[in-house]
């Protein structure tokens, strides 16, 4: 199979592609953290700090494997973190220290 399709279509560009699976109609409640990351990214968009297009670019840049394995909001939070890092609004140190502090708070080893 040629690799052209990987070049011609980003992992998220799936309109019209082969899929024979039925629509899964069962819905679940949005989790609190998912609602919070959704709200956070809306505020960042409102303030033009990280806009919707940039967030989408961040998701497209995750690549096929993460796009396939991360859930919808998991992709949002990772994309958000990456864009904030790329823009220098947060540093890798900021995130490393804070995630350690938060996981210690819950007694979790990251």
């Amino acid at each position, binding site marked *: 199979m040629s690799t052209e399709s990987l070049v011609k279509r980003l992992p998220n560009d799936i309109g019209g592609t082969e899929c024979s699976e039925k*629509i899964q109609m069962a819905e679940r409640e949005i989790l609190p953290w998912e609602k919070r990351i959704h709200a956070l990214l809306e505020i960042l968009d409102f303030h033009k700090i990280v806009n919707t297009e940039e967030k989408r670019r961040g998701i497209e840049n995750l690549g096929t494997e993460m796009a396939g394995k991360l859930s919808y909001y998991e992709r949002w939070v990772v994309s958000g973190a990456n864009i904030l890092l790329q823009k220098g609004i947060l540093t890798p140190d900021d995130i490393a220290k804070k995630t350690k502090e938060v996981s210690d708070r819950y007694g979790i080893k990251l």
Partner: protein
Amino acid sequence: MSTNHNHDHDDHAAITHDELPGYYEILEISLRELLIEKGVITADELRRQIEAMDTRTPAVGAKLVVRAWLDPEFKKRLLADGVAASAEMGVISWDDTAFTVLEDTEDTHHLIVCTLCSCYPRSIIGLPPDWYKSKEYRSRAVREPRAVIAEFGTIIPENIQIIINDSTANQRYMVLPMRPAGTEHFNEEQLEAIVTRDTLIGVTLPRI
């Protein structure tokens, strides 16, 4: 090959917010606290945004549809400029995102999708259902809309053309369904009750 993550998340359905946060929630908490500490955002505006999200339901979309059914002048304004017409109902838009309302007619039915991600008129009708964001819907809706709509239990006859509208970050859509027969004596509340979220996406039709 990418897997659809929506049914994998049935496994997570049992996790409540009382349980320990996973990796992604820790990341969310971290980003939020860092941005508040650095003064990039405030805790209060985040709280207000969540509150605003909670109030967004398909109700506004239903109100737009019902008002269009009852008021021909409003319908013209709604079809000409969805953003301006929504503003009449109190929906404030903070950017240039276009919002177009698509009118179903005797020979045309509209369906909306976002093949690239999940673009959806959230400020008008709230959060999209999981299936709208799914691989199955996004790939199949543009290829076999009649079959997809039939999976929702709706048969669109062959003589009716289906137009699939692919949303983007700058362009959101909502369907203006036809008013069903037998609703001539319905009041506004009764009419709004039959204009559900799924009728605004186009996978079903309003029914009495």
